[in-house]
C-alpha cells in the first residue's frame, strides 16, 4: 500500500491504536463514526492484529503517560481489561463478521455497552442480525448482555432474534439481573417500561425451556431480605393481567397449550403452577375442556394429574363431557404413579354412575381394561370395582379381548373375579390341568419301586399322600453330589497354562479358575519348553507393571493377602526362583491363611523344579473331588506320610465327595500301600484305623472330617495314639469348632450399636450367630510392647507348627474365623475369594453361611452393601446335592430381607432351585423368618417381593411360599409394620391354590383390628375356608414328591 490514501489510513490507525491503548472508548467511537465501510475494511487487518496481540499478552508499546498501564505488570497480566475492551469495540467497528464472531465482551462496563451500541448504530453492519443469533446460541452464553441485545432490537438495528435463547435470556436477566445489575423495582413495572415486550416476547415465554428459578425466584436482593414482591415472571404476569395490561384469557390459553408441548417437566411444572395461580373460573375451565382433556395424554404425571383435577371440577359442576373424557382417559393408566390412575378411575366410576348409556359403558370398560395392566395392585383392584356393575359377558369383542389379556396379568384372586365376570375359567385352573403331567398313579408306581435305602436317601419314609413330603434330611454319606455336577477340565499344556495365567492376571472368573491355575502350575510349571521366555515376556512385563496398583477384577496389582501370594507364585514360575513380596497389608486370617499355605507349597515346588499333580485340584464344581481321582493322584505321587505339602493333602481330603467312595476304597486297596492306603481307606469310611503321629495329626483329623462332616470325631479317633506329643498335636490342631467336635450354632435377630467417628450410633440390624467354641474377639488395651509381644508369639508359634505339627489349625475350624469386620477383610473383597473359602470344605459350608449371615445382616438396609460380594457367601445354597441345614435356611431368610439386589437375587435363586428339587420346605423357612422378625427390623415389602418372584415359578413354589408365609404369620406375636405386603402375597398364593390359612395363622389374623388395608386383608385371609385340596394344590404336592423321587432314581438300590 502506498500513496496519500495509504498514509491517511496509517495515520488513522495510529490514532486509533493510541486511543485503544489509552482505553478511551468514546473517542474510538467518534473516530470510527464518520468512516465509510471501505475505510473500515482497510483498518480491519491492523486492528484485528492489535486486538489479538493484546489478548495474547504480546509485547506492545503502551503510551508512556497512560495511568492504566502503570497499574499492571504487563509480563504477568497482559493488557489491562479496559484496553482489551477498547480493542474489541474497535474490532466491532471495522472488522467483518468472520472476525467479530470470535469476540467475547466479558469486561464491558455500562459505559462500554453504550459505546458498543453507538458503534453499531454508526456502522449498521448488514450481518448484525446473524451475529446476534450466533452469540445467543453460544454454548457458554452470549458475550453481550440481554439489555444490549434488546436495545439493538428496539432501535431497529437488528430484527428480533428467532432463537429461543433470546427469550430465555430475557427470562433470566429480567429476573436476576446479571453483569452486576440489580433491580429495585418489581418485574411488572419494569416490563411496562418496554411495552413491546408485552406484545411478543412475553408470550414466547410459554414456548421455551425455563424453570422455577425465573417463574418463582427466591432472590436475596441487595439490602433486602427475601425476594422483591413480583420479581418472578409468574407474579409479574399475574399482576399485569389484573391491571389489564395483559389479556388474561390469552395467558390461560398459552399456559395451557404449553402443558401439551414437549417441554421438560421442570418447565411444565412452572407453567402448571402459573396456570393454577390464575385461578380460572368454572366458565373459563368449561371453555377449555378440550385442552384439559389433551393433558390426559401427557407423559408427565403432574400434567396429566392437573388435567384430571380440572376435569374433576367440571364433573362436580355437572359440566363434564363424559364421552370425550372417557375416550381420552386411557393414557393416564400408562403412567407409573398410582395416584393419577386412582383419581382417573374415580372419575370414570362417577361418569358411569351418572350415565348408563352403552357408549359410556363401553368406553369405561376400555379404560378399566387399560387400568388392569397398571403396575399398582390397588389400581387394578379399583379398576374392577369401578366397572363392577357393567356386565362383561355381553361386551364387544375388542373389549373382551382387552380384558382377557389382562386376565393373564392380574393376581390369581383378581383373575378369579375377572374370569367370573367374563364367564370363563380362571387361568390357574386351566394351567393346573395343562401342567398335570405328573400323574398320581405313576408317582405311586415310582415310589413303590424305590428300595428302603433309596427312600431314606430321598427323605421319604412313607407315602406322603396329598401333602408335601417332610423336610429332606439325610446323612452325608447317603448324598450324591457329583451327579449332574459340572466337571472341571484341568489345564493340559503349556500354551493353555500361559493363556489361563494371562487371563487371570486381568480378570479372575471364579475360584475354580484359580484352582485350575494352581493345578496347572503344579503339574506343568517345572517344565520350560523352548520359547518359554518369549512366550511369557508380555506376561512378566504385565505383572511388573501392575505391581502395587489396584485392579478390581484381576490378580494384577494385588497388594496383599492371598492374591499377592498367587502373584508371587506366578513370578516364581516365570523367574524360576522363589519370589516373596513384602506387603504392609495384614496377613491372611482364617481359611485364607490355609489357602495361602497351599499357594506357597506350589511356589516352593516350582522353585525346586518339582512337578506332579496337585492332590487338591477339584474334579467337579463347588470344589468337589471324585474319590477315585484322588486315589489315582496318590498312586502317582505316593508318600503321603512324609509329604512336604500337608495343606494340599488336607485340602484334598476335605474335598472328597460322598459319591463313589466304595469304588475308590477298592482301588486304594489295590493300588496304594502303607500309610497312603490306611489314610485314604479311613477317610472314605473303611475299616482301617488311624495311627496318629505329631506331624500327621492334622491329616488324620481331616480324614476323619472327610469321613464324617457332622458330629463328634472322638469315637473315630479314640485310641489312635498314646504318644504324648501326638496327643498334644491332636489337641493343638483340634481345638476349634468343626475339628474334633462339630460346630453348634445358636442365633438371634437383634440390633447392635456401631462405633462411628462421632461416637456410638444407632440400633443397627444384626443377626448374631454364635458358634460354640469359636473364640470371640477381644480387644486388649493398647500398650507399646503389645505389637512386639504379638509378633514374637506368632513367630514362636510358626516355628513350632513348622517343626512339630505341620499345621496350626484344621481349616474346618479356620472357616469360623473369617473376618467379620471391614478392616480385616482384604481376603474377602471379591466374590472369587469368598467362593474359594467356600470350596475349602464343600461338605459343610455352614461356617461360610454363618459368616454371610453376619455380613448381610450388618448391611441389610445399607445401599453401599451392593458393592461388596456378600452374595458369594450364599453360593453353597445353590449346590443341589445337599439338604439345607438350619443355617442354610437362616442365610436364605436373611438374604430375602436384604436391600442388596445381588444378595436377594441369590436368595431367590436358591429358593427357586431348592423348592424345585425338593430341598426347601416351608416349615423351617417360615420359622426362621419368624425368628428374624424378632429383631424388629425386617422389611415385609422386601420379603414379599422376593417370595413373589419365587411363587410365580409354578404351583409347587406357590405352595411352599404360601406355607412359609402361613408359618411366619403364625409366629408373629403382634402384627408388624408393612404386614399387608405379606398378607397380599399370602392371599394371592392361597387364592391360586384354593387353600385356607392354618389355624395358628388364623388366630393371629383374627386379632387384627381396624378398617385399613392390613385389617381388610387379614379378615379376608382368616375367613378363607377349606374346601378340600384343589387340583393345583394336589399338583404342587405331586411335583414335590416327583422332585424327591427323581433325586434317588437311577442310584443303586443298596448303595452305601
Amino acid at each position, binding site marked *: 500500500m502506498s500513496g496519500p490514501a495509504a498514509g491517511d489510513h496509517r495515520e488513522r490507525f495510529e490514532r486509533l491504536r493510541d486511543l485503544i491503548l489509552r482505553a478511551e472508548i468514546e473517542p474510538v467511537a467518534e473516530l470510527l463514526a464518520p468512516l465509510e465501510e471501505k475505510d473500515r475494511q482497510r483498518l480491519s487487518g491492523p486492528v484485528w492484529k492489535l486486538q489479538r496481540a493484546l489478548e495474547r499478552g504480546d509485547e506492545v508499546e503502551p503510551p508512556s503517560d497512560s495511568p492504566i498501564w502503570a497499574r499492571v505488570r504487563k509480563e504477568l497480566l497482559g493488557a489491562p481489561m479496559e484496553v482489551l475492551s477498547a480493542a474489541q469495540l474497535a474490532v466491532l467497528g471495522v472488522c467483518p463478521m468472520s472476525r467479530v464472531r470470535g469476540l467475547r465482551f466479558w469486561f464491558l462496563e455500562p459505559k462500554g455497552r453504550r459505546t458498543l451500541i453507538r458503534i453499531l448504530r454508526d456502522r449498521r453492519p448488514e450481518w448484525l442480525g446473524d451475529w446476534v443469533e450466533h452469540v445467543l446460541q453460544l454454548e457458554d452464553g452470549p458475550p453481550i448482555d440481554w439489555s444490549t441485545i434488546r436495545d439493538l432490537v428496539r432501535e431497529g438495528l437488528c430484527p428480533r432474534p428467532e432463537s429461543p435463547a433470546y427469550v430465555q435470556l430475557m427470562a433470566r436477566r429480567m429476573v436476576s439481573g446479571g453483569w452486576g445489575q440489580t433491580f429495585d423495582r418489581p418485574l411488572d413495572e419494569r416490563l411496562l417500561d418496554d411495552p413491546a415486550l408485552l406484545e411478543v416476547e412475553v408470550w414466547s415465554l410459554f414456548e421455551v425451556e425455563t424453570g422455577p428459578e425465573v417463574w418463582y425466584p427466591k432472590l436475596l436482593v441487595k439490602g433486602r431480605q427475601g425476594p422483591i414482591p413480583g420479581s418472578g415472571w409468574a407474579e409479574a404476569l399475574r399482576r399485569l393481567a389484573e391491571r389489564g395490561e395483559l389479556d388474561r384469557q390469552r395467558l390461560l390459553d398459552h399456559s395451557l397449550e404449553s402443558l401439551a*408441548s414437549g417441554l421438560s417437566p421442570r418447565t411444565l411444572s412452572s407453567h402448571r403452577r402459573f396456570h393454577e395461580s390464575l385461578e380460572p373460573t368454572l366458565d373459563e375451565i368449561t371453555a377449555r375442556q378440550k385442552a384439559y382433556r389433551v393433558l390426559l395424554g401427557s407423559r408427565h404425571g403432574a400434567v396429566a394429574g392437573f388435567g384430571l383435577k380440572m376435569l374433576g371440577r367440571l364433573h362436580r359442576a355437572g359440566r363434564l363431557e363424559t364421552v370425550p373424557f372417557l375416550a*381420552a382417559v386411557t393414557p393416564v393408566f400408562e403412567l407409573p404413579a398410582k395416584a393419577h390412575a386412582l383419581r382417573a378411575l374415580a372419575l370414570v366410576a362417577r361418569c358411569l354412575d351418572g350415565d348408563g348409556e352403552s357408549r359410556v359403558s363401553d368406553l369405561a370398560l376400555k379404560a378399566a381394561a387399560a387400568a388392569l*395392566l397398571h*403396575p399398582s395392585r390397588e389400581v387394578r383392584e379399583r379398576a374392577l370395582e369401578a366397572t363392577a356393575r357393567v356386565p362383561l359377558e355381553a361386551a364387544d369383542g375388542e373389549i373382551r379381548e382387552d380384558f382377557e389379556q389382562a386376565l393373564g396379568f392380574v393376581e390369581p384372586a383378581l383373575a378369579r373375579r375377572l374370569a367370573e365376570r367374563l364367564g370363563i375359567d380362571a387361568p390357574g385352573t386351566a394351567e393346573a390341568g395343562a401342567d398335570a403331567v405328573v400323574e398320581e398313579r405313576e408317582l405311586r408306581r415310582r415310589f413303590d419301586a424305590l428300595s428302603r435305602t433309596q427312600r431314606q436317601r430321598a427323605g421319604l419314609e412313607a407315602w406322603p399322600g396329598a401333602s408335601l413330603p417332610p423336610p429332606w434330611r439325610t446323612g452325608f454319606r447317603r448324598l450324591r453330589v457329583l451327579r449332574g455336577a459340572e466337571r472341571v477340565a484341568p489345564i493340559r499344556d503349556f500354551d493353555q497354562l500361559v*493363556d489361563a495365567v*494371562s487371563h487371570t492376571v486381568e480378570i479372575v472368573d471364579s475360584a475354580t479358575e484359580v484352582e485350575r491355575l494352581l493345578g496347572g502350575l503344579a503339574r506343568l510349571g517345572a517344565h520350560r519348553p523352548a520359547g518359554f521366555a*518369549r512366550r511369557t515376556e508380555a506376561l512378566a512385563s504385565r505383572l511388573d507393571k501392575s505391581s502395587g496398583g489396584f485392579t478390581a477384577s484381576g490378580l494384577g496389582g494385588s497388594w496383599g493377602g492371598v492374591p499377592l501370594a498367587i502373584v508371587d507364585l506366578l513370578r516364581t514360575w516365570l523367574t524360576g526362583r522363589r519370589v516373596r513380596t513384602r506387603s504392609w497389608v495384614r496377613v491372611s486370617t482364617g481359611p485364607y491363611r490355609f489357602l495361602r499355605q497351599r499357594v506357597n507349597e506350589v511356589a516352593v515346588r516350582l522353585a525346586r523344579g518339582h512337578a506332579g499333580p496337585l492332590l487338591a485340584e477339584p474334579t467337579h464344581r463347588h470344589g468337589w473331588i471324585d474319590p477315585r481321582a484322588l486315589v489315582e493322584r496318590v498312586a502317582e505321587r505316593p508318600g503321603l506320610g512324609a509329604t512336604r505339602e500337608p495343606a494340599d493333602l488336607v485340602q484334598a481330603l476335605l474335598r472328597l465327595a460322598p459319591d463313589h467312595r466304595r469304588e475308590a476304597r477298592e482301588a486304594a486297596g489295590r493300588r496304594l500301600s502303607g500309610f497312603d492306603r490306611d489314610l485314604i481307606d479311613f477317610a472314605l469310611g473303611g475299616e482301617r484305623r488311624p495311627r496318629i503321629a505329631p506331624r500327621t495329626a492334622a491329616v488324620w483329623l481331616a480324614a476323619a472330617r472327610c469321613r464324617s462332616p457332622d458330629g463328634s470325631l472322638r469315637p473315630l479317633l479314640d485310641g489312635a495314639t498314646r504318644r504324648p506329643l501326638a496327643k498334644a498335636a491332636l489337641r493343638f490342631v483340634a481345638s476349634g469348632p468343626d475339628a474334633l467336635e462339630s460346630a453348634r450354632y445358636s442365633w438371634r435377630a437383634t440390633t447392635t450399636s456401631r462405633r462411628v467417628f462421632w461416637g456410638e450410633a444407632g440400633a443397627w440390624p444384626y443377626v448374631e450367630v454364635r458358634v460354640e467354641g469359636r473364640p470371640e474377639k477381644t480387644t486388649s488395651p493398647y500398650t507399646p510392647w503389645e505389637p512386639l509381644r504379638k509378633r514374637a508369639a506368632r513367630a514362636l508359634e510358626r516355628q513350632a507348627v513348622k517343626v512339630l505339627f505341620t499345621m496350626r489349625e484344621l481349616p474346618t475350624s479356620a472357616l469360623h474365623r473369617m473376618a467379620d469386620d471391614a478392616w480385616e477383610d482384604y481376603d474377602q473383597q471379591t466374590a472369587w475369594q469368598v467362593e474359594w473359602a467356600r470350596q475349602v470344605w464343600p461338605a459343610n459350608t455352614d461356617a461360610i453361611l454363618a459368616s454371610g449371615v453376619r455380613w448381610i445382616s450388618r448391611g441389610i438396609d445399607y445401599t453401599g452393601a451392593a458393592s461388596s460380594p456378600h452374595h458369594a457367601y450364599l453360593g453353597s445354597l445353590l449346590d443341589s446335592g445337599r439338604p439345607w441345614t438350619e443355617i442354610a435356611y437362616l442365610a436364605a431368610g436373611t438374604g430375602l430381607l436384604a436391600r442388596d439386589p445381588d444378595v436377594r*437375587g441369590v436368595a431367590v435363586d436358591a429358593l427357586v432351585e431348592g423348592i424345585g428339587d425338593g430341598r426347601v420346605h416351608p416349615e423351617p423357612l417360615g420359622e426362621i423368618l419368624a425368628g428374624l422378625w424378632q429383631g424388629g427390623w425386617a422389611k415385609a415389602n422386601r420379603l414379599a417381593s422376593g417370595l413373589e418372584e419365587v411363587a410365580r415359578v409354578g404351583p409347587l413354589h406357590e405352595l411352599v411360599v404360601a406355607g412359609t408365609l402361613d408359618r411366619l404369620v403364625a409366629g408373629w406375636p403382634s402384627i408388624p409394620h408393612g404386614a399387608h405386603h405379606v398378607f397380599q402375597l399370602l392371599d394371592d398364593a392361597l387364592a391360586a391354590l384354593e387353600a385356607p390359612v392354618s389355624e395358628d395363622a388364623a388366630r393371629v389374623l383374627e386379632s387384627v383390628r381396624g378398617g385399613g388395608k392390613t385389617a381388610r386383608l387379614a379378615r379376608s385371609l382368616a375367613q378363607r375356608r377349606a374346601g378340600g385340596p384343589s387340583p393345583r394344590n394336589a399338583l404342587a404336592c405331586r411335583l414335590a414328591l416327583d422332585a424327591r423321587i427323581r433325586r434317588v432314581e437311577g442310584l443303586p438300590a443298596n448303595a452305601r
Partner: protein
Amino acid sequence: MSATALDYTYRYQQPSSLTPAAGAAGSRLHLATCSGAGEHPHFFAGAARRPLLLGKLLLALSDVVRTHFYQPFRPALMDPVVTASEEMLRFEGFSSCCGVYARVDFEAESFDAELTGRGTTNVDFNDPMRSALARLRDGEPVRLAVGRDEVSIERSGAATVEKKVKLPVRWLKGFGEVQAYQAELEPRLEVPPPEALRFVRTLPRNARASQRPGFVTRSGRSLRLSPRESPGSVRLAGTHRVRLLEPLLPGARLLRLWSDEGSGVTAWEIEHPQARVFLVLSPEVSRGFSGEGQLLELLAAGGGHGVLRQVRAQLHWQTRIDPEGLAARLGAEPMQVHGALAALGARGLAGYDAASGTFFHRELPFDLDRVEVLQPRLRNARRLIAEGGARVLRRQGGAVDVEVPGSSGVRHQVRLAAGGDRCTCPWWSRYQGRRGPCKHLLVARLVAEGDASAAAPAGPAT
C-alpha cells in the same frame, strides 16, 4: 470431518406435525423427510389401521434416539431414519450413547394404502409431534404421510427446518456396525405379553443400579432377573434400557429375547399384528456398538472380497435379501455373499432383520466411507505394520505364529489357528476375542496373509 465428530445438517422442508385433517374427523401425521441431494422424498401416504400402536412405536423409537443411557448428557438432537419399500416401512434409530439400536417395522397391512416409495432418509421428530404422538388413539382416523407430495408442499408454505448437529464418529460407526451383531443373534426366550410386562416392570429403573449385570432366566412361564448365570439364561446389563418396552407390551403377541453369547449383545423383539419393534442392546451400558471390533478383520482386509462390489450392485431396496439366491446369481459362495453383506451393513448400506434372518437394503443417509478409516484399532495395526518389526515365526499345520512389537519394548506372540486365535497382550487376555481382535492380531493376520499393503493409510496412533 474432525477426528471425533462430523458436522451434519438435517434439512426438512417443514417440521413433522400432527394436524387435524381437513374436512374430516381425525388427524394427519406428516413425517417430514430430509433432503439428501436436494430432494425431499415422498414415500407414502395412507391411513393407519392402528393409530395407537403407530404412536406408541414411533414414540419409543424417538425415545431411543433422544436418550443417552450411560450418562445424563444432553443428547444430540438426532433423528430416526426411515426406509420404504413395497412391503414395509422401517424406522431405525440409534441412541446418543451408541449402545441401543431400535427398529420399528410396519408391514404394508398396517395401512390402508399401498406402499409405493423406495429409499431411505431421515425423518424429523420434533417436540410438538412427539407430544401429539402420545395422544393418538384407536378409533380416531389418522392419515400418515412420509414425505410430502408437491401439491401439499405448495399449499403449506411453512418454513424450512434445519438442524445442525455434530454426529460423533463413534455414533456413525456404531449405527453401521450394529447390523453385524444382529446377524449373530439367536432366539433364546419367548414369553407372552402379560408375563413380559410383569418381568419388565421388575427391572430396576435407576440407571446406576441397573448397570449391574444380571441374567434373564426362565422362571415357570415368566422371566426373572437373576444375579447368576444358569443354563439358557441371557446376560443383561443396563436394565433401564429395557424399560422402554413397557408401554409397547399391551396388545402385543409376544416378547422374544435374542442374544449372541459371543459378543454379549441382546435384542428384544416385540411382535404386534402387522408391526414389530426390535431393540438391540450393547453388552454393557458403558459400551457402545462402535469400536467393538466385530468387523475389524473384514475391514482390515480392505473389505476386499471381490464379491462386495457385485453384491452392492444387486441392492434394489429389497426387504429381504436371499444370500443363497444372490450367491447363485453371482457365481459366488453364500458365505462370501454373507460376508459382503455384513461389510455393506457396516458401511450403512444394508440392515439385518433377525426375525426373518435376512439382510435388507437401505442406505444410511450419512457418509460412512470415511468413518472406516477412523477405526482406532485398525489404524494402530496399520501403524505397527508401517513401523515394521512384525514377523512370522513359524507356520505349522494350519497355525501361524507371529511376533508383533508391542508398547514398552514388549513383543507379543500371536498365534493364528483354526481352533482359535490368541495373543499375549492384556486386551486379548482380558476379553479373549469377545470384543473383536486386538491390534496385534490384526497385524498378524495382515502379515501372515502377506497383505501388508493394507498399511497404506496409516494415521496417528491413539
